């Protein structure tokens, strides 16, 4: 079984409850995984893939026309 880094040190994955999710929209494809002991979140990782050119936080395109 895989070992998972947690807030309590490395733990066997079989001892943890696993939750996964994705975000897929125009600007990103994101996957995340969470591991819990009961209701306690002990591990969370996220992987974001940017899809497009930069868009500044205020919505102004990063391109220069």
């Amino acid at each position: 079984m895989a070992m998972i880094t947690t807030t309590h040190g490395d733990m066997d994955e079989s001892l943890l409850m696993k939750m996964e999710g994705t975000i897929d929209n125009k600007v990103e494809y994101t996957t995340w995984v969470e591991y819990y002991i009961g209701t306690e979140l002990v591990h969370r990782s996220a992987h974001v893939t940017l899809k497009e050119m930069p868009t500044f936080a205020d919505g102004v395109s990063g391109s220069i026309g």
Partner: protein
Amino acid sequence: MCTSFKQDLFNGLHAFGTSVVRGTTAADSFKAALYLVSGSLGAATTAYGTTSEVSGTGYTAGGTTITSWNAPTTSGTSAYTTPTASFAWTTVTLSTAFDTVLVYNNTASGKNAVSVHTFGSQTVTAGNFTLTMPTNAAGTALLQIS
């Protein structure tokens, strides 16, 4: 605007002002830093700063070094470039939600800003955060002048 000029801008070939002195032909060093949802980075951001930067176990202020960039190139009337590798933070805990990465010039004394990119709000707990680059092509490259 000439397409070759756009590519030249990425390569630092032209200086219209007098404030920049380049002492080397080497590429500058760039870094990527993460910022909280509560931050207000955007087009008006001029330089790296610690205000609203994430903090937590395993994260070093200033962010991670961008190891290399694809050679600036052109397609059609656009010039573009993208880092050659993902930005990665391993075994970190970032408990306060963040949604922004700032790319900045770490060689420049003023730590001048290059670009700001936003994504869905994230936290990390004893885990990894990876920001994978878009395809280095016109329309998708991380930095593009069109």
